[in-house]
Protein backbone atom coordinates (compact mmCIF):
# COMPACT_ATOMS: atom_id res chain seq x y z
CA UNK A 1 0.00 0.00 0.00
CA UNK A 2 0.88 3.69 -0.15
CA UNK A 3 4.39 3.97 1.23
CA UNK A 4 3.60 1.13 3.61
CA UNK A 5 6.35 -1.00 2.08
CA UNK A 6 4.77 -4.15 3.41
CA UNK A 7 5.10 -3.15 7.05
CA UNK A 8 2.22 -4.38 9.17
CA UNK A 9 1.83 -2.66 12.51
CA UNK A 10 -0.75 -3.11 15.18
CA UNK A 11 -2.92 0.02 15.19
CA UNK A 12 -5.35 0.59 18.02
CA UNK A 13 -8.08 3.22 17.95
CA UNK A 14 -9.36 4.05 21.41
CA UNK A 15 -12.74 5.72 21.62
CA UNK A 16 -13.79 7.22 24.94
CA UNK A 17 -16.38 9.80 23.99
CA UNK A 18 -20.09 9.66 23.28
CA UNK A 19 -21.25 10.61 19.78
CA UNK A 20 -22.81 13.94 18.72
CA UNK A 21 -21.81 16.02 21.76
CA UNK A 22 -18.38 16.35 20.17
CA UNK A 23 -17.07 15.42 16.74
CA UNK A 24 -14.46 12.94 17.95
CA UNK A 25 -16.55 9.80 17.37
CA UNK A 26 -17.36 10.76 13.78
CA UNK A 27 -13.87 11.85 12.86
CA UNK A 28 -12.39 8.77 14.53
CA UNK A 29 -14.60 6.65 12.31
CA UNK A 30 -13.36 8.58 9.28
CA UNK A 31 -9.77 7.73 10.22
CA UNK A 32 -10.62 4.07 10.67
CA UNK A 33 -12.29 3.84 7.26
CA UNK A 34 -9.18 5.27 5.61
CA UNK A 35 -6.87 3.14 7.76
CA UNK A 36 -8.63 0.01 6.51
CA UNK A 37 -7.06 0.54 3.08
CA UNK A 38 -3.53 0.28 4.47
CA UNK A 39 -3.52 -3.42 5.32
CA UNK A 40 -2.50 -2.88 8.91
CA UNK A 41 -3.62 -4.90 11.93
CA UNK A 42 -6.49 -2.81 13.25
CA UNK A 43 -8.22 -2.99 16.62
CA UNK A 44 -10.98 -0.67 17.74
CA UNK A 45 -11.53 -0.14 21.44
CA UNK A 46 -14.62 1.40 23.00
CA UNK A 47 -14.35 2.31 26.67
CA UNK A 48 -15.97 4.83 29.00
CA UNK A 49 -18.55 6.96 27.15
CA UNK A 50 -17.16 5.61 23.90
CA UNK A 51 -19.50 2.62 24.30
CA UNK A 52 -22.41 4.95 23.51
CA UNK A 53 -21.11 5.22 19.95
CA UNK A 54 -22.31 1.67 19.32
CA UNK A 55 -25.84 1.86 20.69
CA UNK A 56 -28.82 0.69 18.67
CA UNK A 57 -31.61 3.01 17.66
CA UNK A 58 -29.76 6.29 17.32
CA UNK A 59 -32.05 8.89 15.77
CA UNK A 60 -30.51 12.28 15.13
CA UNK A 61 -33.31 13.78 13.09
CA UNK A 62 -34.40 16.27 15.72
CA UNK A 63 -30.90 17.54 16.44
CA UNK A 64 -30.14 18.24 12.80
CA UNK A 65 -26.99 16.12 12.73
CA UNK A 66 -26.06 13.22 10.50
CA UNK A 67 -26.65 9.80 12.04
CA UNK A 68 -23.44 7.90 11.38
CA UNK A 69 -24.19 4.90 13.60
CA UNK A 70 -24.91 2.61 10.64
CA UNK A 71 -21.32 3.03 9.51
CA UNK A 72 -20.17 0.91 12.45
CA UNK A 73 -22.14 -2.04 11.09
CA UNK A 74 -20.31 -1.62 7.77
CA UNK A 75 -16.87 -1.95 9.38
CA UNK A 76 -16.86 -5.67 8.62
CA UNK A 77 -16.92 -4.84 4.91
CA UNK A 78 -13.73 -2.91 5.49
CA UNK A 79 -12.17 -6.03 6.96
CA UNK A 80 -12.22 -4.64 10.47
CA UNK A 81 -12.75 -7.70 12.62
CA UNK A 82 -11.59 -6.69 16.06
CA UNK A 83 -13.87 -4.33 17.91
CA UNK A 84 -13.41 -4.50 21.67
CA UNK A 85 -15.93 -3.11 24.13
CA UNK A 86 -15.02 -2.97 27.79
CA UNK A 87 -17.60 -4.91 29.85
CA UNK A 88 -17.13 -2.74 32.90
CA UNK A 89 -17.81 0.44 30.93
CA UNK A 90 -21.12 -1.04 29.78
CA UNK A 91 -22.05 -2.20 33.28
CA UNK A 92 -21.23 1.13 34.86
CA UNK A 93 -23.62 2.74 32.40
CA UNK A 94 -26.42 0.23 32.93
CA UNK A 95 -26.00 -1.14 29.43
CA UNK A 96 -25.73 -4.69 28.15
CA UNK A 97 -24.59 -6.14 24.83
CA UNK A 98 -28.23 -6.10 23.74
CA UNK A 99 -28.17 -2.33 23.73
CA UNK A 100 -25.43 -2.34 21.11
CA UNK A 101 -25.61 -2.89 17.38
CA UNK A 102 -24.44 -6.29 16.16
CA UNK A 103 -21.15 -6.00 14.31
CA UNK A 104 -20.31 -8.79 11.86
CA UNK A 105 -17.81 -9.65 9.19
CA UNK A 106 -17.70 -12.35 6.56
CA UNK A 107 -14.77 -14.70 7.03
CA UNK A 108 -13.14 -15.32 3.66
CA UNK A 109 -11.18 -18.23 5.12
CA UNK A 110 -14.34 -19.95 6.27
CA UNK A 111 -16.58 -19.87 3.18
CA UNK A 112 -17.65 -16.30 3.98
CA UNK A 113 -19.38 -17.36 7.14
CA UNK A 114 -20.76 -14.39 9.06
CA UNK A 115 -18.95 -13.92 12.35
CA UNK A 116 -19.06 -11.49 15.22
CA UNK A 117 -16.48 -8.75 15.16
CA UNK A 118 -17.58 -7.18 18.44
CA UNK A 119 -16.01 -8.64 21.55
CA UNK A 120 -16.94 -7.80 25.11
CA UNK A 121 -13.74 -7.88 27.08
CA UNK A 122 -12.98 -7.41 30.72
CA UNK A 123 -10.67 -4.77 32.09
CA UNK A 124 -7.60 -6.99 32.45
CA UNK A 125 -7.98 -8.47 28.97
CA UNK A 126 -8.28 -4.99 27.50
CA UNK A 127 -5.14 -3.94 29.36
CA UNK A 128 -3.25 -6.71 27.59
CA UNK A 129 -4.73 -5.82 24.20
CA UNK A 130 -3.75 -2.15 24.54
CA UNK A 131 -0.30 -3.04 25.75
CA UNK A 132 0.45 -5.09 22.63
CA UNK A 133 -0.12 -2.25 20.18
CA UNK A 134 2.49 -0.49 18.08
CA UNK A 135 0.47 2.64 17.43
CA UNK A 136 -2.30 3.94 19.67
CA UNK A 137 -4.63 6.69 18.51
CA UNK A 138 -7.08 8.15 21.00
CA UNK A 139 -10.29 9.97 20.23
Amino acid at each position, binding site marked *: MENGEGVVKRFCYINRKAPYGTIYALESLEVVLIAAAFDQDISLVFVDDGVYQLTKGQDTESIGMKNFSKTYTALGDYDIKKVYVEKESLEERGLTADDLQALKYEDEDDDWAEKDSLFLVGRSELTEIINEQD*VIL*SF
Partner: protein
Amino acid sequence: MKFGIVINEGPYTHQSSDSALQFVKAAIEKGHDIFRVFFYHDGVNNGTRLGVPPQDDRNLTKEWSELAEKHGLDLVVCVAAAQRRGILDEDEMGRHGKNAHNLAPGFRISGLGQLIEAGIQTDRLVTFGD
Protein backbone atom coordinates in the same frame (compact mmCIF):
# COMPACT_ATOMS: atom_id res chain seq x y z
CA MET B 1 14.41 8.24 16.33
CA LYS B 2 11.58 9.13 13.98
CA PHE B 3 8.55 10.86 15.50
CA GLY B 4 5.08 11.51 14.20
CA ILE B 5 3.03 14.17 15.96
CA VAL B 6 -0.76 14.49 15.96
CA ILE B 7 -2.47 17.71 17.09
CA ASN B 8 -6.19 17.44 17.64
CA GLU B 9 -7.10 20.87 18.96
CA GLY B 10 -6.89 24.40 17.65
CA PRO B 11 -4.56 27.01 19.04
CA TYR B 12 -5.27 29.07 22.19
CA THR B 13 -8.42 27.30 23.48
CA HIS B 14 -6.36 24.25 24.37
CA GLN B 15 -2.73 23.89 25.33
CA SER B 16 -2.22 21.00 22.92
CA SER B 17 -0.59 22.98 20.11
CA ASP B 18 1.75 24.69 22.63
CA SER B 19 2.71 21.38 24.22
CA ALA B 20 3.31 19.81 20.82
CA LEU B 21 5.44 22.75 19.76
CA GLN B 22 7.61 22.43 22.87
CA PHE B 23 7.87 18.68 22.37
CA VAL B 24 8.87 19.05 18.71
CA LYS B 25 11.47 21.71 19.55
CA ALA B 26 12.97 19.48 22.25
CA ALA B 27 12.98 16.45 19.95
CA ILE B 28 14.73 18.37 17.17
CA GLU B 29 17.22 19.76 19.67
CA LYS B 30 18.01 16.20 20.71
CA GLY B 31 18.68 15.21 17.13
CA HIS B 32 15.48 13.26 16.51
CA ASP B 33 13.66 13.34 13.21
CA ILE B 34 10.13 14.74 13.02
CA PHE B 35 8.62 12.80 10.14
CA ARG B 36 5.35 14.69 10.11
CA VAL B 37 3.03 16.85 12.20
CA PHE B 38 -0.56 15.96 11.41
CA PHE B 39 -3.37 18.37 12.30
CA TYR B 40 -6.77 16.79 12.84
CA HIS B 41 -10.17 17.72 14.31
CA ASP B 42 -10.05 21.40 15.37
CA GLY B 43 -6.27 21.08 15.14
CA VAL B 44 -6.60 22.18 11.52
CA ASN B 45 -7.25 25.69 12.86
CA ASN B 46 -3.54 25.90 13.64
CA GLY B 47 -3.11 26.27 9.88
CA THR B 48 -4.91 29.55 9.30
CA ARG B 49 -2.67 32.46 8.43
CA LEU B 50 -5.44 34.94 9.31
CA GLY B 51 -5.09 34.74 13.07
CA VAL B 52 -4.02 38.00 14.70
CA PRO B 53 -3.18 37.26 18.33
CA PRO B 54 -2.36 40.22 20.58
CA GLN B 55 1.23 41.43 20.24
CA ASP B 56 2.21 40.31 23.72
CA ASP B 57 0.96 36.78 23.06
CA ARG B 58 2.55 33.97 21.08
CA ASN B 59 1.52 33.41 17.50
CA LEU B 60 1.29 29.64 17.27
CA THR B 61 0.66 29.42 13.54
CA LYS B 62 3.65 31.64 12.87
CA GLU B 63 5.79 29.56 15.21
CA TRP B 64 4.84 26.37 13.37
CA SER B 65 5.52 28.03 10.01
CA GLU B 66 8.91 29.25 11.14
CA LEU B 67 9.85 25.90 12.65
CA ALA B 68 8.80 24.20 9.44
CA GLU B 69 10.94 26.51 7.37
CA LYS B 70 13.94 26.14 9.62
CA HIS B 71 13.83 22.37 9.96
CA GLY B 72 11.90 21.28 6.89
CA LEU B 73 8.97 19.99 8.93
CA ASP B 74 6.07 18.41 7.08
CA LEU B 75 2.97 20.12 8.50
CA VAL B 76 -0.09 18.34 7.18
CA VAL B 77 -3.64 19.58 7.68
CA CYS B 78 -6.32 16.93 7.20
CA VAL B 79 -8.37 17.83 4.14
CA ALA B 80 -11.72 16.54 5.37
CA ALA B 81 -11.39 18.24 8.76
CA ALA B 82 -10.12 21.42 7.08
CA GLN B 83 -12.98 21.64 4.60
CA ARG B 84 -15.52 21.44 7.40
CA ARG B 85 -13.79 24.23 9.28
CA GLY B 86 -12.94 26.59 6.43
CA ILE B 87 -9.21 26.03 6.12
CA LEU B 88 -8.34 26.21 2.41
CA ASP B 89 -5.26 26.40 0.27
CA GLU B 90 -5.36 27.86 -3.23
CA ASP B 91 -6.27 24.56 -4.86
CA GLU B 92 -9.09 23.92 -2.45
CA MET B 93 -10.33 27.48 -2.96
CA GLY B 94 -10.60 26.84 -6.70
CA ARG B 95 -12.13 23.40 -6.29
CA HIS B 96 -14.90 24.65 -4.03
CA GLY B 97 -15.54 27.99 -5.75
CA LYS B 98 -14.48 30.08 -2.76
CA ASN B 99 -12.96 33.53 -3.11
CA ALA B 100 -10.22 33.24 -0.51
CA HIS B 101 -7.67 30.86 0.87
CA ASN B 102 -6.05 30.98 4.27
CA LEU B 103 -3.50 28.19 4.67
CA ALA B 104 -0.37 29.47 6.39
CA PRO B 105 3.11 29.05 4.90
CA GLY B 106 4.76 25.71 5.57
CA PHE B 107 1.45 23.86 5.93
CA ARG B 108 -0.04 21.61 3.29
CA ILE B 109 -3.47 20.03 2.97
CA SER B 110 -3.70 16.31 2.42
CA GLY B 111 -5.70 13.23 3.27
CA LEU B 112 -6.05 11.07 6.35
CA GLY B 113 -3.80 8.51 4.70
CA GLN B 114 -0.94 10.79 5.73
CA LEU B 115 -1.80 10.12 9.37
CA ILE B 116 -1.81 6.36 8.87
CA GLU B 117 1.42 6.59 6.92
CA ALA B 118 2.96 8.52 9.81
CA GLY B 119 1.91 5.70 12.12
CA ILE B 120 3.54 3.15 9.85
CA GLN B 121 6.73 5.07 9.10
CA THR B 122 7.61 6.48 12.50
CA ASP B 123 9.02 4.88 15.62
CA ARG B 124 6.63 6.79 17.87
CA LEU B 125 3.39 8.61 17.26
CA VAL B 126 2.57 11.16 19.95
CA THR B 127 -0.89 12.72 20.12
CA PHE B 128 -1.75 16.07 21.68
CA GLY B 129 -5.40 16.88 22.20
CA ASP B 130 -8.20 17.73 24.60
